[in-house]
């Protein structure tokens, strides 16, 4: 047991360090101990003892409380590290067991050192700080779909099951007491036993989480047991309070009305708690709509409001756990959509950290609390009976309820599920805290109850916790796979939902899917509109899911790869090799890519087409601004309030994206035939030219005449697309523009029109064909283009602007990079000037205006002549699709010309 020696190490350290400080714990007599410890240390440590100025002062009393807390947290954390040293050990023994054992050892040390137990799991501390962190985490990250799918079963077990357990245990204990099995020393009547039954019967969320997380049973089983443990809080709270009041007034004085009051109280506590939680969820979601400028404190809002939901429920003595759980479940969808990716990560990690450490502390303190002579009032009869009863009644309750539930459930709960559910009824710290809270004056048998609770908790957590894993294995309970859904699963499962809802409607059943469908309509029409940022509201969940999956994949590719920053070579993707891929989509994809990302610079050059000198300086600036800088030129930057995306980050991201793109391409190309890829590259290159030309033209058109309505020319459609994608990007990423310009939403209206498109037309083709697409407001694309906003004041160094524009939000970058994985790679503009190519295109299409003279390009960026030729030949090979586009182009060009004349 190497592990234990390791565990003892910090213990010894701690006990050595704590010998004196331990006396100062919150429960001890700080004054006396402080004086002693101060003496000790001043004798040994400070040389200037006795009067005068002391160079070193011992300020224990000043730091005492936070210091002890910090030390405890440290001990708990170190214990976790040590525990996980031994891989074999962790697979067998659940962490909670080890933590309790550690707590026992620590408690023994404290006891030996002080002759008196100083620490125990303080109910106040537990209910106000430790429990909320765990419940908050659980609620916020609750898989809501799974939860609501099984809500019926969860509620049944939580309400009926807990009541059943409580009453049966209480009555039977009273029965065996009358029968004389329990010693007479235990002075308790029916009410006391019912009270005890109420607090011991509730399955404990902390224990369930701790044990079940390691067992990895399938999700359904987990959610049912865990959901039950959360939702039974209301029952426990009410029963506990009712019985305490009954005990206070004495069983004889309880009137019939009091029972009804108890029932009413249950409704108020449970529904009230849920309501408080939902109200806070709405408030929280609403607040996060407006945190765009204060991203840095976004996570704080979440913690605060979720915690406030808990406290508010406590304030009104409602079910705080219910409140917090529903606050978390309710807000999750909206909050996650509203906040930035970084905030999401922060929230996730902080919550998990807090919950993990709270859990650790709870178990350690449970262990410590047990080592206390004053607590132990052992009665074998009571303990044995309690253990037997809670186990038997749990099993009976589960079997009986499951029998009823299975009549209604689509997926019946199998026998092995029932076994696991019965066995997984773990009791934990909630019961302990409740029993400690009992008033010893009122409840004479408190000490016996405390001891019994401790034994029950230890038995369920340690014995059942230890054995549940082998049991699950032995019973071959289906395990969870812990697998993220693929995009196919996302799509098809969504389709399944629609199908089921429709079938229920056809079959005339107002079933679950029917109501969920209704709810989703309501959510979409009202709730989401209220609680989601406009930019987010207009995004599809499917798209979000797609992006998430892409990010995950990309990360996993990187994880496997390493060597990220090597090749910055531009390789054109094989996407176009897909014959079914319509050309237009490719073009728009290009535009999107170019327009939204690196191609900023092209635009900048274009807005100053006049003087060659200007262009030269412009080019210089562009290059200076956009060339990747060597590492040492970065400036370090610190701001407490803003986490800017610095040049470095941007650069790394861009390079990273490009590499990713290449990799995925090469990855793909191993899958697809080689020759296909080659051909596609040429094709792609040709299209690249086209897209750039289009971009060039359109950008020139727009500033000169905002009234320009190309009607249904593809160019504008393309433009619109570009604008929209740009808008998506800009909107979320640039904090300021959104409000100032007020652009984005106008554009949305414009793009809503495709609704009318006939369903028979394939979506991709519509881009160029559908005449029903209304002309977008000409300002939409334009205003959204980040570089347009600053035409007048465009700083010489474009990249400065670009760094602001490009997302704070890393996900955005990913969107861009990843979606381009699928489409075609955009050229790294800063390094590859477009002009040679553009002029080549001009030559091809014969635009009415002479092309702008290619700007002087530093040697290292000049295209090798051979390459350009090759590209031209590639172009000519692609004459056919190219010709198709020509009408558009010439139209565009003439428009341009006309507009320029008119202005």
């Amino acid at each position, binding site marked *: 047991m190497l592990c234990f020696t390791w565990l003892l190490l910090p213990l010894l350290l701690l006990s050595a360090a704590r010998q004196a400080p331990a006396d100062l714990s919150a429960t001890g007599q700080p004054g006396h101990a402080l004086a002693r410890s101060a003496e000790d240390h001043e004798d040994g440590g400070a040389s200037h003892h006795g009067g005068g100025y002391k160079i070193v002062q011992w300020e224990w009393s000043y730091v005492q409380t936070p210091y002890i807390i910090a030390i405890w947290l440290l001990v708990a954390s170190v214990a976790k590290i040590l525990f996980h040293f031994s891989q074999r050990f962790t697979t067998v023994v659940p962490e909670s067991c080890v933590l309790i054992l550690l707590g026992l050892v620590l408690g023994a040390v404290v006891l030996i050192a002080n002759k008196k137990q100083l620490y125990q799991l303080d109910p106040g501390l537990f209910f106000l700080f430790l429990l909320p962190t765990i419940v908050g985490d659980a609620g916020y990250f609750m898989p809501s779909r799974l939860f609501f799918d099984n809500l019926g079963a969860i509620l049944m077990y939580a309400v009926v099951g807990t009541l059943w357990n409580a009453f049966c245990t209480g009555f039977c204990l009273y029965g065996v007491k009358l029968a004389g099995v329990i010693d007479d020393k235990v002075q308790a009547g029916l009410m006391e036993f019912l009270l005890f039954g109420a607090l011991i019967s509730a399955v404990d969320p902390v224990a369930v989480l701790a044990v079940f997380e390691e067992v990895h049973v399938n999700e359904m089983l987990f959610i049912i047991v865990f959901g039950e443990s959360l939702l039974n809080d209301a029952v426990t709270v009410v029963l506990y309070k009712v019985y305490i009041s009954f005990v206070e007034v004495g069983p004889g004085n309880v009137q019939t009305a009091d029972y009804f009051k108890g029932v009413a109280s249950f409704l108020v506590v449970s529904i009230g708690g849920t309501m408080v939680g939902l109200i806070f969820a709405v408030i929280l979601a609403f607040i996060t709509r407006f945190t765009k400028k204060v991203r840095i404190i976004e996570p704080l809002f979440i913690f605060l409001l979720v915690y406030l939901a808990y406290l508010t429920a406590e304030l009104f003595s409602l079910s705080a756990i219910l409140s917090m759980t529903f606050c978390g479940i309710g807000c999750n969808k909206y909050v996650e959509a509203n906040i930035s990716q970084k905030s999401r990560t922060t929230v996730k990690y902080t919550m998990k950290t807090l919950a993990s450490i709270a859990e650790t502390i709870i178990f350690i303190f449970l262990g410590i609390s047990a080592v206390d002579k004053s607590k132990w009032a052992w009665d074998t009869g009571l303990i044995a009976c309690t253990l037997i009863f809670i186990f038997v009644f749990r099993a009976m309750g589960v079997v009986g309820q499951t029998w009823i539930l299975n009549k209604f459930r689509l997926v019946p709960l199998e026998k092995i599920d029932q076994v696991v559910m019965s066995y997984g009824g773990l009791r934990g710290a909630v019961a302990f805290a409740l029993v400690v809270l009992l008033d010893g004056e009122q409840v004479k048998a408190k000490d016996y109850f405390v001891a019994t609770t401790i034994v029950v908790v230890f038995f369920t957590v340690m014995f059942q916790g230890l054995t549940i894993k082998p049991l699950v294995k032995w019973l071959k309970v289906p395990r969870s796979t812990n697998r993220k859904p693929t995009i196919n*699963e996302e799509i098809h499962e969504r389709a399944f939902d629609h*199908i089921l809802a429709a079938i229920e409607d056809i079959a005339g059943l107002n079933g679950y899917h029917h109501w969920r469908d209704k709810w989703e309509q309501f959510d979409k029409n009202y709730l989401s509109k209220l609680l989601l940022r406009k930019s987010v509201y207009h995004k599809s969940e499917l798209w979000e899911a797609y992006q998430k999956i892409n990010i995950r994949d990309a990360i996993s590719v990187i994880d496997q790869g390493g060597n990220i920053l090597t090749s910055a070579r531009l390789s054109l993707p094989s996407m176009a090799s897909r014959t079914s*891929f319509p050309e237009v989509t490719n073009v728009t994809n290009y535009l999107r890519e170019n327009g939204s990302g690196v191609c900023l610079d092209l635009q900048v050059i274009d807005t100053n087409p006049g003087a060659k000198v200007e262009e030269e300086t412009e080019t210089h600036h562009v290059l200076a601004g956009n060339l990747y800088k060597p590492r040492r030129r970065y400036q370090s930057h610190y701001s407490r309030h803003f986490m800017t995306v610095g040049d470095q980050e941007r650069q790394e991201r861009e390079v990273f994206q490009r590499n990713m793109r290449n990799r995925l391409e090469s990855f*793909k190309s191993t899958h697809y035939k080689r020759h296909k890829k080659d051909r596609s590259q040429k094709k792609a290159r040709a299209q690249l030219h086209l897209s750039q030309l289009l971009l060039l033209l359109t950008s020139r058109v727009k500033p000169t005449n905002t009234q320009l309505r190309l009607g249904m020319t593809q160019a504008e459609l393309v433009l619109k697309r570009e604008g929209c994608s740009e808008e998506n990007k800009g909107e979320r990423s640039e904090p300021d523009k959104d409000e100032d310009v007020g652009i984005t939403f106008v554009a949305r209206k414009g793009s809503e029109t495709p609704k009318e498109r006939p369903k028979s037309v394939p979506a991709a083709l519509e*881009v160029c064909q559908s005449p029903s697409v209304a002309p977008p407001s000409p300002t939409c694309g334009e205003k959204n283009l980040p570089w347009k906003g600053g035409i007048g004041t465009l700083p010489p160094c474009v990249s400065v602007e670009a760094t602001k524009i490009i997302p704070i939000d890393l996900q955005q970058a990913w969107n861009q990079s990843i979606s381009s994985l699928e*489409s075609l790679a955009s050229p790294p503009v800063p390094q590859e000037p477009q002009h040679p190519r553009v002029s080549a295109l001009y030559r091809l299409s014969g635009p009415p205006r002479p092309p702008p003279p290619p700007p002087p390009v530093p040697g290292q960026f000049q295209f090798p002549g051979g390459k350009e030729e090759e590209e031209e030949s590639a172009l000519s090979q692609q004459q056919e699709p190219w010709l198709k586009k020509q009408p558009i182009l010439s139209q565009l060009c003439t428009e341009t010309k006309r507009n320029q004349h008119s202005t």
Partner: protein
Amino acid sequence: MGSRASSLLREEDIEEIKKETGFSHSQITRLYSRFHSLDKGENGALSREDFQRIPELAINPLGDRIINAFFPEGEDQVNFRGFMRTLAHFRPVEDNEKNKDPSAGEPLNSRNNKLLFAFRLYDLDRDDKISRDELLQVLRMMVGVNISDEQLGSIADRTIQEADTNGDMCISFSEFIKVLEKVDVEQKMSIRFLH
């Protein structure tokens, strides 16, 4: 009304339907009364218009596709038998059916048939392949108008790429099954019909 409706249903029909679909007697009569109430033409068969009158289907993104799934190819009427046959796809798989010997033929609510139903919703031209265009159409139905065609296109590409094993840029039925093999289709494509 239920009694009148069920009286129109002959006992031997019920038996046959029971055999074919696995629905219980009461389920069949219940669904028959539903069928009857949907049948505004009172001709013992449902037309597309009858289905389209169901208000919820109008807001179901896949509503029209699902309606179409009720109609055999080339027909625009569906009788009660056909109606039940389609609904039977969504009957949950019961315990005693799991161990039934395979020689008895595949029941309508088998995993494969459930998947096939979903697959047919995509596969408009019935060539047993979901092409990119077909997928895009369904995706377009399922997402809002706010997602651009490029975004949708990339989703479709990604979807196909993920599922496509033989490189034909289409999702065949076997690929469809493969890609959903980890999904609990039996559960996710079943609804609880009242007993």
